[in-house]
């Protein structure tokens, strides 16, 4: 890792907007970041923290307020637009759905920086287009008009277009927005594989914290106010940075599970013991209605989950007595009364 030149490197980069002749509004920075080949980087941050602005500045769509970006060791400003297009490909949030384009033509546009002055495609171009469509799992879509595609299908086609552009760097701005959960997972998985197999450096901005924690080689965490924390996702979690950036009233980042909890406790404690998935889901249910779940302690209410012959039983011990329940909802109905 030490001797390699990063695909992209920023030096004291400040991003933001210029308004008028002197007015500048800084969004984030100064930032010093690097992207290496084969890395999948997830850019996370609350809404309005400037993820898109950072992405646009790194990709050259927007001028930096201060500092510089180097692409493979060359200052980005010295690259002519067609040469920059051979280095970075983008998937943006801009809609292309109101056009008469079919998916194949759209992917073929990815060859724009390489095609002749009239845009004619060579056999080699067609081969790369075919590969890109295949790699993005969009093979069944190539004849369809963009307007007829679902959000998930649309993203696959836009990804195929970026792949056809055949660049060492790819940047995707919220590619998982509007997708259903399976499509989100599928897309993240695909990007993860692509980074590994094609040695591309891939930067995506996303709100999918749990997915990002699973697939990202590195996480860039942009705080409101423009501070950026970088590092492996695990390090950031353990250092408590995730919690610090995202914590809002009533939402807690749980270090132990890497997920957010959205419930406020009602100040009551309950013990839980047992094995298997039933315990996990019981805990979730208990937390939802406001309990803080602890080990079973004598004297305070506790629940014992047992499994026999495929039959799960929840035993609630409370004030010396014991009630048996055969479902979580029946257990909760009793606890509801108890918590009041």
């Amino acid at each position, binding site marked *: 890792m030490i001797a390699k030149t990063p695909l992209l490197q920023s030096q004291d980069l400040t991003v933001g907007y210029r308004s008028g002749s002197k007015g500048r509004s800084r969004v984030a920075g100064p930032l010093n970041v690097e992207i290496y080949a084969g890395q999948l980087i997830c850019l996370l941050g609350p809404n309005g923290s400037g993820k898109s602005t950072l992405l646009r500045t790194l990709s050259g*769509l927007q001028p930096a307020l201060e500092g510089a970006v180097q692409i493979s060791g060359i200052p980005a400003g010295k690259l002519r637009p067609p040469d920059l*297009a051979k280095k970075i490909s*983008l998937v943006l949030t*801009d809609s292309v759905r109101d*056009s008469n384009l*079919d998916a194949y033509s759209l992917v073929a546009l990815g060859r724009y920086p390489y095609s002749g002055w009239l*845009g004619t495609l060579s056999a080699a171009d*067609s081969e790369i287009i075919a590969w890109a469509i295949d790699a993005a799992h969009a093979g069944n879509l190539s004849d369809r008009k963009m*307007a007829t595609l679902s959000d998930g299908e649309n993203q696959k086609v836009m990804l195929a277009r970026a792949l056809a552009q055949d660049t060492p760097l790819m940047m995707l701005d919220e590619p998982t927005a509007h997708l259903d959960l399976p499509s989100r997972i599928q897309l993240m998985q695909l990007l993860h594989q692509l980074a590994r197999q094609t040695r591309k450096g891939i930067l995506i901005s996303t709100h999918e914290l749990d997915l990002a924690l699973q697939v990202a080689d590195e996480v860039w965490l942009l705080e409101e106010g423009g501070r950026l924390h970088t590092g492996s996702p695990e390090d950031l979690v353990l250092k408590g940075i995730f919690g610090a950036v995202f914590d809002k009233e009533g939402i807690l980042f749980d270090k132990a599970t890497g997920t957010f909890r959205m419930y406020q406790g009602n100040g009551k404690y309950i013990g839980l013991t047992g094995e298997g998935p039933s315990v996990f889901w019981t805990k979730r249910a208990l937390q939802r209605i406001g309990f803080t779940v602890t080990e079973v302690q004598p004297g305070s209410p506790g629940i014992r989950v047992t499994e026999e012959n495929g039959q799960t039983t929840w035993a609630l011990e409370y004030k010396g007595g014991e009630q048996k329940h055969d479902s979580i909802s029946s257990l909760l109905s009793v606890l509801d009364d108890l918590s009041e």
Partner: protein
Amino acid sequence: MGAATPLSGHDTTRWSRRRILHLTGLSLLLLIAFLMDITLGSVRIPFRQVFRILFSMHTDDLTWKYIVEQIRIPKACTAVLAGCGLSVSGLQMQTLFRNPLAGPDVLGITSGASLGVVTIMLSEGSIAALYTIKELGISGSWLIIGAACVGAAGIMLLVVTISGRIRNNVMMLIIGVMIGMITQSVISLWQYFSSPELVKDYLLWTFGSLGGVSGSQLYILAVVVVIGVVICFLSSKLLDALLLGENYARSMGLTTQRARVIIICSTSLLAGGITAFCGPIGFIGVAVPHMARALFNTSSHRILMPACCLIGTLLMLFCDMIAQLPASQTVLPINVVTSLIGAPVLIWVILRKNNLRAT
């Protein structure tokens, strides 16, 4: 799915056999329409005689020869130039603004050209009327075409500048229409203070006419339109990139500023030149690109450009034939006919496709 096979069957940017067939069919239709346009008119000339005149063979009647050579052929050629030029400039504008209703007449470009023309026509002085300008010959033609192109370019520049700030299609249209209205009212104001003869000259010009272009003017128009259309064809690739919007276009290496200059130049040449000589012809520029998209089922400008040329020319010749109301003595103003034909055609296309897409 097996190994990645070349998807030539899927490649919608190529000239498939079906598309070549369409194009050949259109070319044949165009030839027929051209011949019919020359044959039809207020004076009945037998087709055989027209044919003989065309191929410089002996004819029985010198009047017929004069009519065909000096009036009908230049008029048909003007129709071809105007139809072709207006259609491709409409296609360019629809892609640039990503707006299905964009076209030289809708966004005020034609009004800009009119303003240029009216400046020359109604200005006091020795070269006052279009009539006298025609007398001036070539230099006068260049003067009026130059003024129209400058007027068109000015408005186009203004609209493009505003479109850089406003991303909304509907807002853009409203502003384009407003600019057109401002231009029109400046023209009206000018008319108000001008002498009635000049105003009548101008009004006749606004009805549009394909018949007023002859001799050296036709060559000038041809030069201007050919240059404009060639630029359009050469800009096919950038227009393709602009289909995805400005950000994607830039990410693929397009210099937007340069693309805009190229499109402004060719649109101004085409709309300005044609408006200067034929008057403000409406609807062709908006309607034809939609017809081309519907027929060829593609967004690729390499295919749409020639398609627009052919369909635009065909439609213009057709309109001209209707304008002459075969075998009647009156000739309808071409501007009225293009709207009468163009609007229903556009409605038919929308209803058939049940949608209208900008690009």
